[in-house]
């Protein structure tokens, strides 16, 4: 197991270096002077400032040396400087990371729990109206643009019904502390987390339904029935456990999409995470910050993939035996 984790960590490191290299060449491939690109817009920075940047990043040196300097900097957690926000990129990102983790993990849990529940329910009632309703909803959620459903949720639940806050992370100026604050944040979390989770809920639902039906046709299920086990027990112990394997795999693969979705959700709900930060970087043409967020979100995805891989080996004993 330790060997496996080490191997995966090495692979992740290679991918991260590849992403950094990609970032580096993107800056150089961008139209215009890299120093001007790093400084934001050329108009916003004077010549002396750009000259400073050129020296700092060694832009007069050969390309490979520059790449080395850049990679070395990242190893020391130096993701560059955001000239727009007047702060190091790494500081900006780490300040915003907890909000994104809270949002994406909540959305993930909502999607996984409700999605598999609905999938199990639908598979147990194939062809009945409840299956039709669940399957149709999944089809709709699967086709709905995330940013649009987020806007509509704000409109209905926040503007028209006034049930939930549709903006921000907590009530500004309320200065709640302790439990009251947690409750306040939770209230602000409901709409963004649910809307971010909808698409994934649909994916897990469809996957669970298909997988449950697939497994329920296998021989060991027939044996269990023949032994006279109660259908509920077969459903829970025999079919469900096996049917969950592809769902776990899929969940790992989709981590990247969840992070990408956070950009849209956080933009709509003014949620102070790295997705919103990416949007700000975008509108201000702050490329250093933009590439920094891209790198950190890729690192998050890799971490998430690693966790699901480990989880997968815990869930499926067969793999543990083989390796």
């Amino acid at each position, binding site marked *: 197991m330790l060997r496996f984790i080490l191997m995966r960590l090495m692979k992740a490191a290679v*991918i991260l270096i*590849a*992403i950094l290299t990609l970032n580096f060449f*993107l*800056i150089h*491939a*961008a*139209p215009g002077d890299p120093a001007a*690109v790093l400084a934001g817009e050329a108009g916003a920075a004077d010549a002396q400032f750009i000259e400073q940047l050129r020296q700092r990043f060694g832009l007069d040196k050969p390309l490979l040396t520059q790449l080395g300097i850049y990679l070395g900097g990242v190893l020391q957690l130096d993701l560059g400087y955001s000239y727009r926000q007047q702060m190091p990129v790494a500081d900006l990102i780490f300040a915003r990371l907890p909000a994104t983790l809270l949002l994406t993990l909540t959305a993930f849990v909502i999607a996984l729990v409700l999605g598999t529940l609905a999938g199990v329910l639908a598979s147990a009632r*194939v*062809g009945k109206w409840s299956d039709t309703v669940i399957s149709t909803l999944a*089809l*709709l959620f*699967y*086709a*709905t*643009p*995330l*940013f*649009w*459903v987020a*806007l*509509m949720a*704000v*409109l209905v639940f926040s*503007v028209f019904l006034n049930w939930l806050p549709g903006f921000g992370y907590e009530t500004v100026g309320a200065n709640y502390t302790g439990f009251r604050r947690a409750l306040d944040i939770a209230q602000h979390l409901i709409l963004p987390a649910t809307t971010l989770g909808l698409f994934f809920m649909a994916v897990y639902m469809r996957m669970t339904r*298909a997988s449950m*039906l697939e497994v329920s046709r296998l021989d060991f299920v027939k044996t269990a029935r023949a032994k006279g086990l109660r259908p509920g027990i077969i459903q829970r112990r025999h079919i469900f456990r096996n049917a969950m394997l592809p769902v776990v795999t899929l969940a790992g*693969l989709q981590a*990247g*999409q969840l*992070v*990408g*979705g956070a*950009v*849209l959700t956080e*933009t*709509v709900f003014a949620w102070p995470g790295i997705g919103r930060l*990416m*949007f700000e970087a*975008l*509108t201000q*043409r702050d*490329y250093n910050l*933009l*590439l920094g*967020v*891209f790198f950190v*979100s*890729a690192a998050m*995805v*890799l971490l998430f*993939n690693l966790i699901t891989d480990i989880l997968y080996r815990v869930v499926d004993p067969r793999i543990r035996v083989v390796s």
Partner: protein
Amino acid sequence: MSDFWKRFSRNRGAVIGVVILAVVVLVAVLAPVLFPQSPWRMVQRPFLPPLSMDQYPLGTDALGRDVLAGLAYGAQVSLLIGVVSTAAALLVGIPIGALAGYFGGVADDVLMRFTEFFQTVPSFALAIVLVAIFEPNIQSIIAAIAIVSWPPVARLVRGEVLSLRSREYVEAAILSGQTSATIIWRQVLPNTLSPIIVLASLMVATAILLESSLSFLGLGDPNLMSWGYMIGAARTVIRQAWWLSFFPGVAILLTVLALNLIGEGLNDALNPSLARRGR
């Protein structure tokens, strides 16, 4: 072929999908006839609510532009970008998958690690970075969508080619002295067509969602009226004018839904042995 149509038309969802898509295509094609004036032109007072004037049934936006005309021209943009970027992704993915599957060994290893890299990187974030750095225009948007969507194609084609590679008819072709290129192009690839068609129809749907998400964030082509742009522009005035973001969203939802339904229908019709049982 007639078998295919029989199976396809038996799938109610797929037929609904074809009907919806046909309407969207028709609107896109007829947009210049139905709305001869540019969708960017101010035609009435701003924030005209829907159904208040017969001439502008969906009302006007914050600059007094006709929402219905915007929807019609947006259909052009969505379909164009969806289809072209999918075609571009196929052009990248099919050769990579075919080479990896056919030659195996080191070529397979290298190409598949390359593919894996693009599958691990968060695709939407990469698309944002690419479009932002290369300036938002239709070429950069299409390129970015293609770059983030080709890996599933490569993996699919590789798997298919791998299983076809050892068939007797391929061995016969090798013995008859045909070159690898001819064998891949003439003997192997035609047999991978049906799963590619199914995947492509689903990819067009995903590409449309991606394009609308990019233009929602302000990364659309500034010269093209797109559904995502319309929603993005209406975001700040959602409290006063809900219809500005509502209708374009419904248009995206219906188009993507139609393509997904068609994709499932194609899957069932082209691979009858794999068609989902139990329904």
